[in-house]
């Protein structure tokens, strides 16, 4: 019986059906199913399945995003129940992310945030046109492991350096890692501004973030 629900949870993620995932999460709460089990033995398996099929080219980015949105919906229902039981879902790391001041480009940054969130990171998305100081303040406030800074323009890309320096000024470096993104960003730029990593797309960003937190723990 519980196995049937877990299987349905997995399928709701594979299908990218947010409403279905949310309904199953509510059902689990009502039935008294351990929310951690619902996540780890149900929903997460769906995410793994989607990831595997994406990896071999069977599924595409929209499948991944729909799965991630369904996952977020289910987790949002289960989180209050987790808190009530005094349980904590293990997070891979805390990430503060945003697009730098003067730049309104949203999509790439939001996609990275969605992917990180679906893959077990706690994500604080500051939005677009974010002042330099806000990145550093938020990183200190939430004890971030990673700060992600997006910029699409060459004129705003230079502010990625300012974010690295602002974190430095608050004494958060090198404990807080910095990953940067955006069309003009290159490996040489990452090195020049003293950041830690970059990715050219959102899927790569998840792998990069995993590597950064793993390196911290090592």
């Amino acid at each position, binding site marked *: 019986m519980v196995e049937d629900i877990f299987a349905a949870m997995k399928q709701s993620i594979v299908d990218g059906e947010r409403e279905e995932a949310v309904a199953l999460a509510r059902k689990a709460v009502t039935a008294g199913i351990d929310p951690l089990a619902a996540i780890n033995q149900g929903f997460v398996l769906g995410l793994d399945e989607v990831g595997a099929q994406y990896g071999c080219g069977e599924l595409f980015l*929209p499948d991944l995003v729909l799965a991630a949105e369904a996952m977020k919906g289910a987790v949002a229902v289960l989180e209050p129940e987790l808190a009530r039981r005094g349980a904590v879902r293990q997070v891979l790391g805390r990430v503060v992310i945003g697009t730098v001041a003067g730049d309104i480009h949203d999509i790439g940054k939001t*996609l990275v945030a969605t992917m990180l969130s679906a893959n077990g990171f706690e994500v604080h998305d500051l939005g677009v046109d974010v002042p330099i100081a806000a990145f550093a303040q938020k990183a200190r406030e939430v004890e971030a492991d990673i700060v992600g800074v997006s910029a699409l323009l060459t*004129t705003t890309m*230079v502010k990625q350096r300012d974010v690295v320096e602002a974190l430095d000024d608050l004494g958060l470096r090198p404990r807080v890692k910095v990953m940067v993104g955006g*069309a003009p960003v*290159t490996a040489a730029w990452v090195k020049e501004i003293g950041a830690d990593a970059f990715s050219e*797309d*959102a899927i790569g960003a998840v792998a990069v973030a995993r590597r950064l937190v793993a390196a911290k723990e090592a």
Partner: protein
Amino acid sequence: MAGKIKTVTDPRLRLEILSDDQVQRLHEATLDVIERTGVRFPSERALEIWHAHGATVDGDRQIVRAPASLIEQALAQAPASYTLAARNREQDLPLDGNHVFLGTDGCGVQVLDLYSGERRRSRLQDVAEIARVADYVPEIGFHWVPVSAQDKPAETRGLHELLAVWQNSTKHVQTESVYAEAEARVAVEMAAAIAGGREALRARPPLSIMQCTAPPLGQDGGSLDAALVAAGAGVPVGFMTMTACGTTAPITLAGNLVVGNAEVISALALIQLAHPGAPVFYAAAQTSMDLHSGGYTGGGPEDFLFGAAGNRLADFYDIPLSMGSFATGAKKPDWQAGIDNSLSTFMATVAMSDMLLGAGLLHGSRIWSYAQMLMDCEIFDLVQHMMRGIVVDEETLALDVIDAVGPAGNYLAQKHTRRHMRRRWNPRYMDRRPYNVWEAEGDGAVEWATEEARRILESHEPEPLPPGLAAELARMIPDAVPG
């Protein structure tokens, strides 16, 4: 001194990409989106203009909803044709629906160094040197700022870039990298100084300005303010949409066209409301996302279809079009670059887009390659030849020559052959040598184009700005532009 500009004119090929009914339907769908969903205009000045003309303005969300009649009446004020002026009058570009002109692409962030081949960050000197080569090449009709002058301060970078191009070329300059009001004011002053005053600027603008929309269904505030300043001075302005199926637009082609069209015509309508009759142009470089990464592709069948569809829409509104062609997603000049740039250019040209953007950039408009630029010019030249079509008349049917040669002869020694042979296409970079020569030399298009670019850069001396003008323009560029 650089000579006459190569253009496509009196086309003999036609393509019906969209029927009249389909265009009408796209237009009505677009008006419906602008009226029902609205478009974001994050500029106080823009919102005031919309409000003053009776549009519904949601001040908090900066979203404008405008009735169909307002948009249609505003667009009707836009001139159907005008001329982009060059410092050299012979290089003026009539945007009259019967010409296709090629520009350099922009705005890259890296350059494949012409001598070392190394990939490095772009700087002001690159802007100047690329402009100098483009000044020489007859296929290039006008300049975009090809790469970003990243060694200049962000606030005045666009002005340094403009000056660098003007100092190295007599051809028209269309900048895509001035998108702040303060910078636009200086750019207009610089253009007026070149034209010979404000009235001359209106009559023969040596500068035009291209702004990007912020899809889906949005505009950039700085771009709007800069465009309003330029349009007020009679400098032609255009808005380019780059909506991508699946990310910034519906996954369907028609849906993408509607979203992109809503962005462009709402911006152009705003310009007409503020400055009725100001010269404007439609600009588009629509695409479909890469299904795997969501990233920009730089080519594909969707892009090629959009390349022709854009002109049907611009024609419907009776305004000139600047179409994104070339700009391959390939990392180097290769098979992919050849496919992307040939098909995109053919489709945009057969539809008679007034301006094509642009030659020279790789990796989705990020990396400048001189070799790619010259090979792109060869693609444009090839397409230009195709557009002449097939002439059928007494002279071309050549019946007397056929009879004279008879069966089993050849046509090499015929005066008819010599008379017409220069109308046959002769490539510069395609390899038609015998196999053994190719094997022995081991070179090809990229090497030849690189060598030619070096020769041009080292030998071409562009016509300088009149004495004192360069210094005057340089003085106009402030150390720091406020805001």
